[in-house]
């Protein structure tokens, strides 16, 4: 309970600025932690000192770091109003004062000039009880990229304290649908993983679906029904340049990037409308057929080694997940629990598969262990779909429905931490977590 309040406080601080900059943006996302781990670590992230003349900071680094850590559900940031002092250097820290406040971890920092339009951010992380420095770091960043730098800092702190790579400096792509007049408006949006900085990258009166990040995080493939028929597009995020890569008769769907970024797996229907899996070399345009079956074969997903493809097929009746070598060969069934398992997404380590699973009439996200073949249901909704792993493999984001509208939810793979991301007034769906940004 206390956790929820402090998280909301941090997030309000985070979004105060965003609301001013964005106005009534329909893409605005609202994030709340709905369930954190018991015994989340109390942490004090003190406002960073700002030692740069002239410009005042647009982004509050410490607030962004605190909000990220709160969102993980594993930390409970202290409200600023409770801080007795705001040290910005190690010499100013009085550990006894912080012990009295029951904080376990202390983060302080300061920002100094590092050149024209660029700053140096120095921060330190202390174990309050032992009075030791756990982490000290200095990084340079352009002034206008303080927000991204803040997420990087949160990643470093998170990794140091939990041993899990952080995924705060990542992004999510998702689709929003708004009813407008007699029709609907579909938008493909890319935002920071905290929901901030949303950018509409495609906008259409016809359906847009199935966004997929390229492995380098620079492009998105997606399906668009502009003109009343499906096509697969690849769009470069930075320039907005896009290209139709599959525009064949019938279904062009479910693009999935090979780990090399050089080819896509996708679903095509033949002239007779039978859906099968193909691979498309993006350089040469060469198309290769992977499955050949009269059933619905769709939703391909590459294994991390780029050798095999997982896919959904109803060849045994209801949809189940199968695996096939990309070069063709024997098809092996992967899922056996329940009568509906679809849209496999594989964990970064290749050991687990997230699926849409029919759990006694409810469509929920389950994770299947590929060795033990056992399924664990992680979500709690009735119409959950579109699971996507965070690049650190520690959490999933997926789409749910509540009160007739779509929203996004996150869950840690152990099921202990839950979060909800909604966009009031918009139907939000098909979230896809980006890979780590390139270094």
């Amino acid at each position, binding site marked *: 309970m206390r956790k929820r309040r402090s998280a909301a406080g941090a997030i309000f601080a985070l979004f105060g600025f965003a609301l001013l*900059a964005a106005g009534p943006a329909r893409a605005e996302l609202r994030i709340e932690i709905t369930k954190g781990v018991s015994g989340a670590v109390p942490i004090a992230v003190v406002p960073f000192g700002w030692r740069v003349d002239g410009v005042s900071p647009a982004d509050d680094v410490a607030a962004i770091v605190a909000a990220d850590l709160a969102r993980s559900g594993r930390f409970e940031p202290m409200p600023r109003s409770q801080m007795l002092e705001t040290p910005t250097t190690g010499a100013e820290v009085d550990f006894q004062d912080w012990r009295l406040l029951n904080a376990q971890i202390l983060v302080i920092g300061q920002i100094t000039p590092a050149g024209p339009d660029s700053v140096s951010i120095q921060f330190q992380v202390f174990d309050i009880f032992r009075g030791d420095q756990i982490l000290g770091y200095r990084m340079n960043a352009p002034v206008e*990229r303080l927000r*991204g730098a803040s997420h990087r800092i949160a990643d470093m702190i998170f990794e140091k304290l939990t041993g899990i790579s952080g995924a705060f400096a990542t992004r999510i792509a998702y689709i929003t649908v708004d*009813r407008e007049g007699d029709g609907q408006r579909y938008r493909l949006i890319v935002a*920071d993983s905290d929901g901030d900085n949303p950018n509409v*990258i495609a906008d259409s009166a016809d359906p847009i*679906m199935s966004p997929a990040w390229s492995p380098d995080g620079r492009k998105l493939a997606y399906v668009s029904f502009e003109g009343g028929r499906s096509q697969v597009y690849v769009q470069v995020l930075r320039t*907005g340049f896009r290209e139709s890569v599959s525009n064949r008769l019938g279904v062009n769907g479910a693009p999935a990037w090979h780990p090399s970024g050089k080819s896509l797996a996708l679903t095509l229907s033949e002239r007779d409308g039978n859906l099968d899996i193909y691979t498309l070399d993006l350089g040469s345009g060469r198309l290769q057929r992977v499955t050949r079956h009269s059933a619905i074969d*769709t939703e391909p997903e590459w294994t991390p080694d780029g050798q095999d493809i997982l896919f959904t097929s109803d060849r045994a009746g209801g949809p189940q997940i199968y695996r096939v070598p990309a070069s063709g060969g024997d098809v092996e069934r992967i899922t056996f629990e329940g009568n509906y398992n679809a849209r496999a997404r594989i964990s970064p380590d290749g050991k687990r598969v997230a699926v849409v699973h029919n759990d006694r009439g409810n469509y929920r996200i389950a994770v299947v262990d590929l060795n033990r073949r056992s399924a664990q249901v992680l979500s709690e909704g009735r*119409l959950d779909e579109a699971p996507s792993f965070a690049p650190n493999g520690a959490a999933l984001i997926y789409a749910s429905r509540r009160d007739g509208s779509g929203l996004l939810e996150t869950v840690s793979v152990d099921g202990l931490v839950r979060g909800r991301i909604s966009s009031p007034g918009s139907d939000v769906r098909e979230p896809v977590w980006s890979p780590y940004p390139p270094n």
Partner: protein
Amino acid sequence: MKIRLMIILAACAWLTAGCQTTPVDEPTTGPGTATSGTATDDGAQTSGIDDDGGFSGMDLDGSQADRIGMQGDPLLETRVILFDYDSSEVRSDFNDVLAAHAAYLAANPSVAVRLEGHADERGSREYNIGLGESRAQAVRRILVLQAVEASQIRTVSFGEERPAMFGTSEEAWERNRRVEIVYP
């Protein structure tokens, strides 16, 4: 009008804000080019809060129903074929409707038809594209068996993306598992 203008201005301000903030290490979040889609005059529709459960889209406009020989025939004016859950088998109660459309198309080989397959909202979206396509193909096969030229027929699947009825209910699901017969 004023409201619409405000929203457009707000959208511009928002896009501009988007341009200015770029991530620290990978400046790939420019606003990009908005893809086309038809320009619509719908910027500032305010929607009531009780929209859910209402119907949308797909009115069968006069030009379709006015075709010679179609008017007044209840079978030919039936343009929606419904399906069971996770099934693309055409139900026998639609045999007469499809026979009427087949006869009409066979007698009018210059008339084209588009079969739009749809699914209800449950389950995964691309699998539902597959279900919608299977349903459209099942209808197509019946028409072709009854002497309609394959070249007269086009199919498209919208999966669950274009519901006939919004809302989460058995009734909505039943109406949304369908193939629409569209005479363009």
